[in-house]
């Protein structure tokens, strides 16, 4: 008789559907790097100075003003190379990236796939080893890429002129407000028109950057159906209106079909209209800033255009403006002269610079490669599938007990949706952020929303085009499981995480100046002070 053979796969499915993953994140219990230090170890050797150079140079430190001579060496850790590598690899394993997880719980951030070929191309020495002050003749390739990518952004937005200098989406918002201000200074309306109108579902940086440029911020709240309130807009408009900055769709994913009415009203009142298109993933090739009546917009290349998020940058925020505003764009500009590209210095009416050099050109290259892998048809497919995936998620997620989708009942939504766990919180005492922490035990990120929580107990899900139906189903299953636990075993949710690298963190340290520690040296110093204080009271 032969031994039996187990149907291993059979144990992985229930009723034909895959079971939840028995996930556990790596837990290396890794020390802080200073604790790994061993005096004398070295991680990398520095090129030596030739004897003749050293002899001729003498001791340059002797020529320093005395207060510029470092008294003692920096107390950096000392580790051999493979120990540094191992430490950081372990930390990397205690991190989830979009490459590893079904990263659709981080709504508004468009955690899509970043093709590896683009990364490989951008890491070519012909990109990485370019100095930004090289003569234009020696950087024709990257200037060409910037020039081509500007044309892509012009076409996608319908606007007339583009700058790729800002180094993030928020930086782009800032740059657009600087352009608004420069425009007003040129028109002589800078003092009179000092109000910017935005909505509560637009990004916090829309409000914050307006304030930074000296504007008073008026924030509109949605109407009962979740749409930006046109009556509230009418009431807010006045001869003091400088601009409207708005997202469409907002974080709720609801498309404001009256957007042209909004922009017309603002224009009639003498203001300009800025479209926050950080995430335009559901709209590529479908609808554009130009037709909706905007004067300026921006795109985060790390959202809509497929470049990596990199734990939060490096990045690019592309800004696009009308012809009338083009003279205020940051410089220098890439100009094509026949087959050759050159840099033209910023003109007198330019806002000047918002970043060193030409911004993050290596990210522009990745975005350009992404566009060239898809083309017009592919970009539209991106948008359509992102919207298909989102509407599929909406259909499935609202079936979960305790979860709802406030506003715009019966309407379709674009690329993301903001759900509410209010019913679940009312019935179980488990809050949205706790659901997120428990979800991490299944290997998925989850995010609530920006502050303030207008939607109670919010969750923002954006499936993008990058995940399969099975991936989406898995995310839904995780949400369903956590909700079930909240009803049946709330303590298990409350005491999460269980399968992450660390357990519940004592957050009280972070708002206590006596105990917060932003560096290891501060931590050691405060610990010594506390110990001395305790010894003193004994």
């Amino acid at each position, binding site marked *: 008789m032969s031994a039996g053979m187990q149907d291993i796969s059979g144990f992985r499915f229930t009723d034909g559907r895959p079971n939840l993953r028995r996930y556990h*994140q790596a837990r290396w219990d890794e020390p802080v790097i200073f604790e790994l230090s061993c005096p004398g170890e070295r991680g990398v050797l520095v090129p030596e100075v030739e004897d003749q150079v050293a002899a001729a140079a003498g001791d340059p430190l002797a020529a320093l003003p005395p207060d510029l001579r470092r008294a003692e060496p920096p107390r*950096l850790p*000392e580790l051999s190379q493979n120990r540094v*590598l191992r430490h950081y690899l372990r930390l990397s394993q205690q991190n989830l990236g979009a490459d590893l997880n079904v990263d659709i719980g981080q709504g508004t951030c468009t955690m899509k796939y970043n093709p590896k070929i683009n990364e490989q191309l951008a890491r070519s020495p012909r990109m990485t080893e370019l100095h930004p002050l090289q003569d234009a003749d020696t950087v024709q390739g990257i200037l060409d890429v910037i020039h081509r990518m500007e044309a892509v952004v012009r076409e996608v937005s319908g606007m007339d002129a583009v700058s790729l200098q800002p180094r993030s989406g928020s930086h782009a918002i800032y740059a657009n407000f600087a352009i608004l201000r420069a425009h007003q200074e040129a028109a002589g309306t800078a003092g009179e028109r000092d109000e910017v109108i935005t909505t509560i579902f637009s990004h916090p940086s829309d409000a*914050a950057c307006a304030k930074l440029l000296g504007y008073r911020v008026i924030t509109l709240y949605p109407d009962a159906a979740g749409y930006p309130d046109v009556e509230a807009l009418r009431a807010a408009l006045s001869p003091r209106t400088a601009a409207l900055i708005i997202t469409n769709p907002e974080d709720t994913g609801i*498309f404001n079909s009256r957007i042209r009415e909004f922009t017309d009203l603002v224009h009639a009142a003498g203001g300009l209209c800025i479209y926050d298109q950080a995430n335009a993933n559901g709209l590529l090739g479908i609808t554009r800033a130009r037709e909706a009546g905007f004067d300026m917009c921006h795109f985060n290349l790390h959202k809509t255009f497929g470049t990596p998020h990199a734990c939060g940058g490096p*990045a690019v925020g592309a800004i696009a403006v009308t012809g009338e505003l083009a003279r205020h764009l940051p410089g220098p500009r890439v100009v094509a002269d026949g087959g050759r590209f050159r840099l033209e210095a910023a003109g007198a009416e330019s806002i000047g610079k918002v970043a060193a050099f030409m911004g993050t050109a290596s990210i522009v290259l990745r975005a350009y490669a992404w566009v060239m*892998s898809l083309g017009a048809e592919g970009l539209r497919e991106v948008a359509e599938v992102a919207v298909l995936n989102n509407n599929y998620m909406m259909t499935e997620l609202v079936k979960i007990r305790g979860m709802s989708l406030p506003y715009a009942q019966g309407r379709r939504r674009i690329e993301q949706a903001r759900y509410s766990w209010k019913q679940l919180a009312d019935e179980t005492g488990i809050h949205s952020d706790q659901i997120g922490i428990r979800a991490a035990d299944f290997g998925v990120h989850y995010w609530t929303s920006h502050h303030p929580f207008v939607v109670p107990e919010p969750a923002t899900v954006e499936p993008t085009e990058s995940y399969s*139906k099975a991936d989406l189903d898995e995310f839904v299953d995780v949400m369903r499981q956590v909700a079930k636990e909240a009803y049946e075993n709330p303590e298990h949710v409350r005491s999460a995480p269980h399968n992450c690298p660390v357990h519940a963190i004592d957050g009280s340290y972070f708002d206590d100046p006596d105990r917060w520690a932003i560096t290891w040296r501060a931590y050691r110093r405060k610990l010594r002070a506390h110990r001395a204080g305790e010894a003193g009271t004994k």
Partner: protein
Amino acid sequence: MTTSSPMDSGAAGAQPYIPNSVPAVKAEMLRVIGARSIDELYADIPPELRLSRPLDLPAPCRSEHQLKRHVESLLARNVPAGEALSFLGGGCYQHHVPAVCDEINGRSEFLTAYAGEPYDDAGRFQALFEYASMMGELLEMDVVSVPTFDGCQAAATAVRMAARHTRRNVVLVAGNVGRDKATVMANYGRADLEFREVRFDPATGLVDVGHLGRMLDHEVAGFYFDNPSYFGTLQSGLDIAAAVHAAGALLVVGVDPGSLGVIAPPGSYGADIVCGDLQALGMHMNYGGGQAGFIATQDDEALVMQYPSRLFGIAPTRVPGEYGFGDVAYSRTSFDKRENGNEYVGTAAALWGITAGVYLALMGPTGMREIGAGIMQRNAYAQKRLASIPGVTLPHAGQAHFKEFVVNFDRSGRTVGEINRGLRERGIFGGHDLSAAFPTLGQSALYSFTEVHTQSDIERLVEALTGEVAR
């Protein structure tokens, strides 16, 4: 499980980055949604806003291989600094990037993560805490922010922090600050800060401390200068700090972190806020894409509350001996308070912060001392050799320098532009032309020497320059 054969699954039309581009899958999902077509999902977009034609974009590459060929054909028109002999500096520098730096920042886990929580992204929080901690040792400062966009932005934010802290709105900026930085700062403060320039002495490249003294008054929030300056000159900070503090203002100093293995950190001579660019710490130049800014202060609560960016702190967890991390004083930020937070916060250059941490861990105190001393030796050697060329002068030769110095060609009768064109024909990228941005320096260029430059590289430059100057 799919049962259809490749022949009829629609795979030919599927896009590799879009799993659900498979027609059968789309149809199934539409059925679940209860929609007849994808177009129906866009019902809320009015026809007059719909683009009625395909986007007018170049034809895409139809395979990964074709894309590679296409992009490589564009990049072929770049000449990387490694193929020429480059002496360009001015805020971005050619350094050796240790292989481990690229290995770590190429990891999917870091490269494709974003804004996860301290539980599922514990590694990101710890890596950035360690970055701040190692920078803190280099700077002898207890608080270091997560990176901002670049050194220019770090300076622009640092002076705004000084303005908020002092509740004053005049910022003095040294005239020997690079023009990019000066314009970024001015732009960032255009609504409510007033910038006044403190002269530098063209004969020394240093801040005119007498002029600074005359400019300081009770309206001044802070004085900003770079040490080393844009010209590479190093200046004593004690008198400057004393004068600035006597006026009740803050001293804000920009520093090259790569100098701090041998040079005293600005806090030691009285800087209240220290900032700079991280690019020299393990980032490739990337045509300016390798820049990242840092800001540091002591742990003074009032000053900490002025940071706009995230600050990651360390704390215990419910398991003894376990390190947890999280956001310190989050209520400062626009994430929490929208327009009532400090400036704004968002994506910046976190991956370069992690990389700078890797770099500092690899280098250690010995590596940082050796690289700092070696760069100063190479610059001293290069100064001697270049000064020996007839027609070439070094206007700031009497000063201590780090990493770069000004070379003047007035006596040669040739412009920097002409000389650099000649050098390029010889495979050399000459120093950055300063004649437009700093006319008081005449026909001058900024030459930078780092650990990548050998004696023979410097000698090749001397020979080429000798020829060009005499042309």
